[in-house]
């Protein structure tokens, strides 16, 4: 999946502002996959959403220091999301591989049983048992069941996790954090701390 282009990036501009522009686009990109990715049959969509989560995660890894405090939490949430989608993807890759192998193993046995029958007019049922792959069928069936059931379980977790992100206000909090800048590390006039912003009254100011 090709990443959306981020417009207006300025090589001479401040890092924090450029990263903010990228985070907006990457967040949009991620959210655009829902609600369609909440359909368990939309495998390609879910796979692309995982890639979008990865892109957002890497930008947050860089941007954490340049943004407000929620950016660090957002990074953790996106990593959790990406890991979960990665586990689902592994099931989506392994399940067809197991089913394909089981089918090939069965076809091998079919050929062997056919050879055993030779010129007989019909096949003796007993010839069909004890093929070279007979032992493997059971394990492959168990593997297929495991990956399919695990996929369903992980998918349910993904839907719950997405809902928890919504409840937490993930998107608006991330956008707010992306617009915040940490206090300057510039030393104060007396050399003992950061420069205080005297223009902002404290809550106790009458």
């Amino acid at each position, binding site marked *: 999946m090709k990443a959306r282009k981020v417009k207006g990036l300025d090589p001479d501009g401040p890092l*924090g502002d450029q990263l903010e522009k990228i985070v907006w686009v990457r967040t949009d990109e991620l959210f655009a996959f829902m609600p369609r990715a909440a359909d368990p049959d939309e495998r390609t969509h879910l796979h692309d959403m995982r890639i979008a989560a990865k892109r957002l995660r890497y930008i947050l890894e860089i941007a954490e220091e340049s943004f407000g405090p929620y950016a660090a939490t957002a990074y953790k949430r996106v990593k959790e999301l990406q890991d979960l989608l990665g586990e689902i993807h592994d099931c989506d890759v392994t399940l067809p591989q197991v089913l394909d192998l089981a089918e090939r193993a069965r076809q091998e046995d079919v050929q062997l049983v056919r050879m055993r029958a030779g010129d007989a007019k019909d096949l003796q049922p007993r010839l069909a048992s004890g093929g070279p792959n007979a032992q*493997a069928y059971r394990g*492959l069936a168990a593997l297929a069941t495991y990956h399919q059931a695990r996929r369903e379980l992980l998918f349910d977790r993904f839907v719950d996790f997405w809902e928890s992100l919504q409840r937490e206000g993930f998107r608006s909090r991330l956008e707010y954090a992306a617009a915040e800048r940490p206090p300057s590390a510039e030393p104060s006039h007396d050399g003992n701390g950061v420069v205080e912003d005297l223009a902002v009254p404290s809550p106790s100011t009458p």
Partner: protein
Amino acid sequence: MAKAREVPGLHAELPFSEAAAATVRVRVEELFDAQEGVLDTEDIERVHAMRVATRRLRAVLEIYRPCFDQDYYKPVLRDVKALADALGARRDPDVQLEALSELAAAMPRADLAGIDLLADEVHEEQAEGNELLGVALAESGRSDLHGRLLALVEEPV
């Protein structure tokens, strides 16, 4: 997964292009420091570390794209992607074999023949992936990918 090395001197007010140069330098060293022993299939953590380093480098190259001379940038990014693909071709079977080994330990003996049959196939994929990785590493050395990446940050837009 190893934590990314810190990039010294990064702050929100730093010009984007300076941040690009500082970050890419650190990520390039991280990648090439992870190269040793990756073809050893007995120690799968090495290839994992190098793959993670490649992903991080690729991500920063894409994030800081406007800061680089595009004539230098495009072929370098293409070669980093090729290296990442080769690392993936080796790492994916490594992960799958590890998972199959855990499953084999947890499942009844009667199911092991099926798991072994799949593991045999995945071992073949691992060997093929290792060959691909060997070729990709040799190619990155021949084309001096390391030097070209460092030159990229010396050639600002």
